[in-house]
């Protein structure tokens, strides 16, 4: 009854009315167009700032200069020049560092997450170390392991290990009470509970740790090269910066980002393959 009165008060005359949810026109633009738009605005502002002389070209090169240098570096990489060798060295550091981080991080994560001793006595220290700026350890690694690739691998692994430990340990606690109870009623051993319940349940968190680690491993390798020399890509950047060759610095960073993105995407791809059931849920939720 009161609904009718409310409608009348609002001027509703009883006829058919069509109403739609109000959405901003920005939201209806396709994703690819929106992304291109943002990139265009960014480059436009960049061009404006440099061509108007607001910033010295030594500090910030023009987009065109940077673009030309990207092509130059690309050519050098494709033709197998010295830059490719540098990139290869950095890649090796990243791959070794990540592999090491996964091996150590996963094992420690299982130990910490699976035992109450690890949880009580080890986890607090890990969290404490995790909050430290870990690149600060870089000079130590150089002092311990020298100027070759080992010190960079160690720093990269050191940075990437912690998120993997934390992700794994947290993942092992992700199984809910019901699932644990069910495994108990089935008479599952500790090993069976770990392998058939806790690890699969924790895979999303473990992969989150791996993703964070994949970002950290790049940062570790490059920082190691900045501080410990060597012949990697980070050294190229350092040299270019010291010569105030800013277009080169920018283009090297862009290639480095591509490598970093590729590593991240590789982990994300592995996650979609391994944690396939999550993808289904996401697909179902976004279909309509």
């Amino acid at each position: 009854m009161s609904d009718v009165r409310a409608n009348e008060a609002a001027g509703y005359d009883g006829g058919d009315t069509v109403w739609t949810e109000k959405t901003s026109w920005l939201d209806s633009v396709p994703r690819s167009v929106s992304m291109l738009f943002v990139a265009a605005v960014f480059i436009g502002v960049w061009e404006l700032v440099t061509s108007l002389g607001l910033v010295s070209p030594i500090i910030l090169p023009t987009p065109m200069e940077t673009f030309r240098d990207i092509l130059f570096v690309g050519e050098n990489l494709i033709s197998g020049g010295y830059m490719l060798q540098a990139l290869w060295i950095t890649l090796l550091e990243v791959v070794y560092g990540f592999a090491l981080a996964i091996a150590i991080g996963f094992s420690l994560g299982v130990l910490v997450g699976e035992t109450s001793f690890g949880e009580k006595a080890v986890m607090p220290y890990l969290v404490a170390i995790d909050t430290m700026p870990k690149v600060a350890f870089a000079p130590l690694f150089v002092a311990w392991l020298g100027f070759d690739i080992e010190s960079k691998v160690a720093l990269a692994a050191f940075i990437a290990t912690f998120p993997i430990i934390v992700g794994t340990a947290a993942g092992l606690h992700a199984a809910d009470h019901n699932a644990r109870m069910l495994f108990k009623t089935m008479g599952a051993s500790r090993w069976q509970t770990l392998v058939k319940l806790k690890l699969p349940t924790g895979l999303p968190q473990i992969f989150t740790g791996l993703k964070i680690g994949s970002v950290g491993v790049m940062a570790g390798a490059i920082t190691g090269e900045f501080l410990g020399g060597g012949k990697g890509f980070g050294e190229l950047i350092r040299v270019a910066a010291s010569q105030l060759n800013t277009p080169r610095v920018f283009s090297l960073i862009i290639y480095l980002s591509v490598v970093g993105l590729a590593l991240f995407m590789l982990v994300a791809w592995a996650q979609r393959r391994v944690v396939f059931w999550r993808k289904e849920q996401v697909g179902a939720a976004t279909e309509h």
Partner: protein
Amino acid sequence: MSAAAAVTPLRGPQGEPVYELSRVGKTYARGHVTALEDVSLTLRKGGFYAVIGSSGCGKSTLLKIMAGLTPPSKGRVTLQGRPVLGPRRDIGMMFQQATLFPWRTTIQNVLLPIEIRDGPAAARKAEPRARELLETVGLKGFESVYPGQLSGGMAQRASICRMLITEPAVLLLDEPFSALDELARDFMNMELQRICMAREATAFLVTHSIAEAVILSDMVLVMKPRPGRVAELVPIDLPRPRTLDMVTTPQFGALVERIRGRLDKEAFL
């Protein structure tokens, strides 16, 4: 309806004793909290028992002790002549949540108890039986589907199969369908009755719904809190198989009323 009614000899199920609880009690906090006091019970083969009571009456504790998930502080629990000293394969259990694992197909979920107890080879051998079970609950064709694609009711039916795959002597049901909507719940209750009758299974159901307890069981155990105890046994002599339209009969109404009357006095203290 008078107090004398409580002492009339129990009818209820007449089969062989399967589960025997004698003077089972459970205390927490070094004996300061009594969760369960002096419960003696005999469950007979083929009987369907329902426990009802307000929260804190010890029904979950009782179920856990019966399942071998937690030891009693005193008393003894025997199932099929052997004391219950931990989880056993002749105990089937089902919880409020279906708890199917999303990385396993429906049939792999059903086979999980076999895989855990006897290994993957035994699980492969039990596959035809799992298929049969899934067929009896109307899930034929869903064997290789992942649980993410099953409805709530279908998931619970799959979890019934998982409970039945080890051919347990007794089914312990902890509010198994309370997460479902009412229509699905009624339907699943009738499924449960059909399965129990077909297998002559002994079932022990914990529920919050008086109607559910009455429609399913041969005997309702009314439990009371502080300390948790079984206050009354109410035999339900409605004919089998039960149907949903029985809820409108005066006999059903009288039973519900009787149980409600026993509960009300302490339920809201």
